[in-house]
């Protein structure tokens, strides 16, 4: 009885008695979830356009952030470094298309998935070789990212919002809106959706797959850069972020592999669920539940709706 009380009643009593803590936890969850969502967004972009399950997305986040910090460290102006990092990400997209995707065209999905593992390993080695393996501090001041926090006295307590998190939320929303416009209004965006629907049909109406792939990997690289900046500003920049990047996988399951809104909503659900679970139910089992909570949410979800919240229905034909 006591255990049932601890599981089903006590957390809600806590939530009711301290709404400010609940609000704070929710906010933290939303911010964390937003960062998961951004990584998942990169996955979705690439999966939609090329059917490649890009495991390297998490590493691209770290790599972009490392490049930015590394270039800034050698004395470049922050915005010049930002511009150069964008050039590097384009170069990366181009190189990946040339050396990995093009020779592996028409191979089974698992082979391409495996190839992105190769990219992951290569980028880890390359990034550490060039910029060193020590954790680095993200440039925040020179990029005019806000610092400090806003404190609200509401709900019978205080709720603290980091200004950086608010900025991240705004930038992320602008970026998602921009991507949505890009996908629906521009020529390239329409070509991209055509490729997502069917490679061969897109080829037959004269869309260059190679070009589209470079563009889409570049777009994913930009998303990775933005993610890297905000994530790096919250903690520090190192390849330890790799494991956190794996959190984007349950987000994908929740949202569906091909849906951009799905990635966002999924990210927020996972972020909030994980924080609430750890804060209210975690102590029951000794804490540390955020290591697996997201995956279990995804697993339960999979059993009832395998295609995700917004994914296209999976139809199989014999």
């Amino acid at each position, binding site marked *: 009885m006591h255990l049932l009380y601890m599981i089903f009643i006590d957390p809600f009593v806590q939530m009711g008695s301290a709404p400010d803590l609940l609000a704070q936890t929710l906010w933290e969850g939303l911010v964390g979830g937003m960062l998961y969502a951004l990584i998942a967004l990169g996955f979705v972009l690439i999966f939609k356009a090329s059917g490649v399950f890009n495991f390297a997305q998490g590493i691209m986040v770290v790599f972009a952030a490392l490049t930015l910090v590394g270039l800034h460290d050698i004395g470049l102006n922050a915005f010049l470094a930002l511009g150069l990092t964008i050039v590097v990400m384009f170069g990366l997209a181009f190189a990946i298309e040339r050396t990995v995707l093009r020779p592996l065209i028409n191979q089974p999905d*698992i082979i391409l998935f*495996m190839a992105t593992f190769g990219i992951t390993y290569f980028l880890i080695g390359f990034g550490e070789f060039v910029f060193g393996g020590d954790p680095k501090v993200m440039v925040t001041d020179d990029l005019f990212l806000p610092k400090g926090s806003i404190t609200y006295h509401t709900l019978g307590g205080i709720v603290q919002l980091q200004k950086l998190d608010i900025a991240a939320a705004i930038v992320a929303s602008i970026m998602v809106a921009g991507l949505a416009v890009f996908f629906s209004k521009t020529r390239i965006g329409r070509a991209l959706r055509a490729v997502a629907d069917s490679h061969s049909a897109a080829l037959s109406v004269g869309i260059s797959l190679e070009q589209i792939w470079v563009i889409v990997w570049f777009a994913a690289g930009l998303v990775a850069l933005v993610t890297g900046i905000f994530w790096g500003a919250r903690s520090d920049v190192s390849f330890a972020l790799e494991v956190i990047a794996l959190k984007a996988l349950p987000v994908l*399951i929740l949202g569906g592999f091909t849906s951009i809104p799905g990635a966002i909503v999924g990210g927020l659900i996972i972020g909030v669920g994980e924080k609430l679970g750890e804060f209210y139910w975690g102590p029951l089992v000794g804490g540390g539940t955020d*290591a697996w909570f997201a995956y279990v949410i995804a697993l339960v979800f999979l059993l009832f709706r395998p295609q995700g919240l917004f994914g296209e229905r999976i139809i199989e034909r014999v």
Partner: protein
Amino acid sequence: MFYREAGQFKTDYASDQAVFPILQDRIGLAIIFVIALAIPLAQNDFLTNAVMIPFLIFSLAAIGLNMLTGYTGLLSLGTGAFMGVGAYACYKLTSIFPNVNIVIWIVASGFFAAAVGAIFGLPSLRIKGFYLAIATLAAQFFLEWCFTHIPWLYNYNISAAIEVPQRELFGIIVTGPRATAETRYYIVLAVVIVMTWLASNLVHGRIGRTWMAVRDMDIAAELMGIRLLPTKLLAFAVSSFYCGVAGAMLTFLWYGAAESTVFNINQSFTILFMIIIGGLGSLLGSFLGAALIYILPIVLRFVPAKLGLGLHAATVEHITFMITGALIIFFLIAEPAGLARLWQVGKQKLRVWPFPY
């Protein structure tokens, strides 16, 4: 020329169904056995302890994953955790019953891994492909969390790690810090040979064929009368059994002590690399892949030192990462079906030599 089956007639069904129907293959296998038995005679502790033992253990884990991913087509990223289940099960068993032969517990611990694997294999009925891979990640992270948060599993040690006790087999010390590399090597070799032989019979028999039917198209397999639930769960159970035994051997016969981080997600990825590079759906590929992925970094670490380049250890590590990544991509481009396929191509070329085809 040298490799030709001309004149080797099959006069009964047994010889027609033999796993190695060609005489040259059997000779080659015998040579490999002799070399494997003779390796400890080289008195090279590094070769035995740091190369051959882990290579054989990883090969066994790769065979396990290959039965699941290569033969049944179910992608799993939980290998590391299933190996961990084996290791912790073996540790608990030998702590509770210290007088029972340790080799029995190493093999028995596989059954615990098999049970856990079958439970986490349940979602495979509804989902497959990448979705299943992510579902197995749940197993990976949940089990890893269990290894650190349930103190009973590591006997409430302060170090929160498995500390392998000393155990004897017929009066010879086989585990613990005082066991010699040769003893441990021979035990690993024996287990790996027996289990590879079993795996070979399994995948060439009825069970293996149902697995392959499920891999090629599960709906079609179901229509042909293969029951998906038992088939998929059996694949998960057998695969986890192999991984569990590999994990137990990894801890007891190689590391001598292990924390939960040994069985983390990177371990799962490493084993997955091995089977994809080696060849999905090939037992030989499991060995070749394990050799490439495990031994390559060791070789790479030695090359700069031998060339007299005074590189920093960290730099060598980074370059190793880069080269491993580049090689994975290179092998995938050169031969997506893996090293096992390269070997078959090579055999075919030998067979028709000196003619091109």
